[in-house]
């Protein structure tokens, strides 16, 4: 039994990490009132840039490479998200369409660049991966140690830290207060002298940065190269995690962990002998069914920010 947990817990955390980053990015954007269905495209960009940077700078940067690659991926995706910001905030584009365009554009640009740079459909494999390590002392704690502190990715720790930092920023700082007010009632915020447009830009750019990290974590821990299928659907899962988590950073983290858990549970239970006769398809759909059941269990409306999706037009009521 414990063995199962020793397997499930680390897998859960590791596979949740990219979703946590991205979903929290989504929380920032949507809390400011801007729908971000483009998370997928932003992740693609991050995954691509992470690998690209890693491949080119591994020689000179050594073990630091994956970490700096995360930063670079963050910057590039943040820049890319600016496109979504301009369209949906300044140009009042339909935020969903703009997001769909971001998804298409992200993948197209990344794949085109791969073709141009590598002359083939996917990149080479990186050698400097995000490392896994044992946390001294903590790993020796019985039961908990092997579950949480053995062979952990640094990126997983950062993901969890980011969730708490995001919670802190959104609920404990002036910026967070403004962010929330802008997403709920932008006109009220405006009358209080808050620059609605500025806050929304910042939020969307943050969402790009975090989704970029999410993508780069994924590509640098799981695939180790970048190709057309590296990111396929994780952005949408992150979107689901964000909604499941009720637009709350810790909720989003919880939901991402839940997805990872459901997946790990399916994998581990499929190897249990008595379940061996059950057709594989049941295990394949298990995580998704479990999610739906869990949602149905969490009664109550999810509370989307009230102005989500509405461009703010000064003086309109």
């Amino acid at each position: 039994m414990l063995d199962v947990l020793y397997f499930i817990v680390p897998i859960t955390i590791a596979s949740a990490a990219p979703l946590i980053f991205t979903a929290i990015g989504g929380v920032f954007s949507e809390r400011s009132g801007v729908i971000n269905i483009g998370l997928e495209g932003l992740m693609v960009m991050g995954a691509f840039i992470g690998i690209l940077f890693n491949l080119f700078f591994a020689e000179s940067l050594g073990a630091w490479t994956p970490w700096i690659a995360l930063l670079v991926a963050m910057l590039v995706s943040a820049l890319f998200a600016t496109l979504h910001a301009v369209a949906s905030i300044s140009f009042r584009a339909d935020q969903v369409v703009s997001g769909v365009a971001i998804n298409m554009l992200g993948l197209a640009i990344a794949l085109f660049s791969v073709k141009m740079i590598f002359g083939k459909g996917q990149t080479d494999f990186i050698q400097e991966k995000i490392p896994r390590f044992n946390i001294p002392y903590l790993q020796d704690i019985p039961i908990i140690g092997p579950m949480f502190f053995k062979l952990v990715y640094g990126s997983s720790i950062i993901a969890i830290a980011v969730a708490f930092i995001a919670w802190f920023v959104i609920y404990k700082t002036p910026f967070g207060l403004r962010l929330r007010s802008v997403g709920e009632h932008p006109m009220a915020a405006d009358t209080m002298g808050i620059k609605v447009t500025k806050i929304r830009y910042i939020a969307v750019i943050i969402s790009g940065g975090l989704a970029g990290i999410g993508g780069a974590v994924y590509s640098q821990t799981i695939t180790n190269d970048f190709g057309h299928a590296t990111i396929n659907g994780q952005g949408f899962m992150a979107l689901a995690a964000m909604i499941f988590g009720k637009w709350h950073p810790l909720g989003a983290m919880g939901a991402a962990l839940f997805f990872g858990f459901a997946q790990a549970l399916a994998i581990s239970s499929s190897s249990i002998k008595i379940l061996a006769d059950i057709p594989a398809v049941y295990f394949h759909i298990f995580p998704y069914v479990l999610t739906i059941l869990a949602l149905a269990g969490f009664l109550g409306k999810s509370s989307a920010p009230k102005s989500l999706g509405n461009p703010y037009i000064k003086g309109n009521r």
Partner: protein
Amino acid sequence: ACGSNDKDNNDAGEKPAAGNDTEKSEFSIAMVTDVGGVDDKSFNQSAWKGVKEFGEEQGWAKGTGGFDYLQSTDPADYTTNLNNLARRDFNLIFGVGFLMEDAIADIAAQQKDTEFAIIDGEVDAPNVTSILFKEQEGGYLAGVAAALMTKSDKIGFIGGMDIPVIERFEAGFLAGVAAVKPEIKVDTKYTGAFDKAELGKAEASRMYSSGVDIIFHAAGGTGNGVFSEAKERKQADKDAYVWVIGVDSDQYDEGKVGDDNITLTSMLKRVDVAVKDIAQQSMDGKFPGGETKVYGLHDNGVSLADSRGAIPQDVLDQIDEYAQKIADGEVEVPEFVEKKK
């Protein structure tokens, strides 16, 4: 970069043409990829390798009248791409992948003067040759290698989607393992997808954690996760005994961990060999239309890649013995997995 030197000769788009058609040959060949593209490190790439090498050997240029390919971005593109090439008067057109069966059947019926070949699929038409591979024979050798190399006597197989081609890999692999060590029960899992690396990784993690030391994957991009997991284990512990057996092409590069490599070997599926073979026959006027050609060990259609020292020579010798038995017809490798109850 590439392709910008097109001297386009679009005559009202009637027959869109590309490339410099200076040296038009009598015979020309082309192929349509499935959605993977010609650099998918898998059968598309291998098929294109065959087409290209064949064309270059004849001194042709890429483009109409020589050799060329079209990439499909969507299964709905198959027929149009095939039709497109047929209308550009290629003599022999390859369709790559079982998903193209129906499209080839349709177009072959329309374009009766063009010869077609379907890779990995079967189409019954007088102007179509079907090319199949005995993946089970390659899988068998992989199984032999795994069984000979395992220290824990625990071996894993990770498949992508649960479809007949992959089942042939599995069936052969199981048979190969059983031939060496019948007591080993291979841990077999299908992830249900070719593009979910995180599933491959999680599945591999579970297997390695349970003591498995060699995993054969036939799971495309999902397999990336298998490599990733193995490499991390190797990185964390240089002495860890973990291996992956690659599939389709030589996946040695995927296995690099610093100075080590966790790729034990790869099971090669030599689509290029088959493509060249059929192209030659067609050019010689001996196109085996209406026939199904099955390429196995014997025809060099499947084989194991160079293990670059990962497998010691004495083991390689033993593998060769098994290979010989298959080639001699002494061993018949099953195509299907015996239904587990």
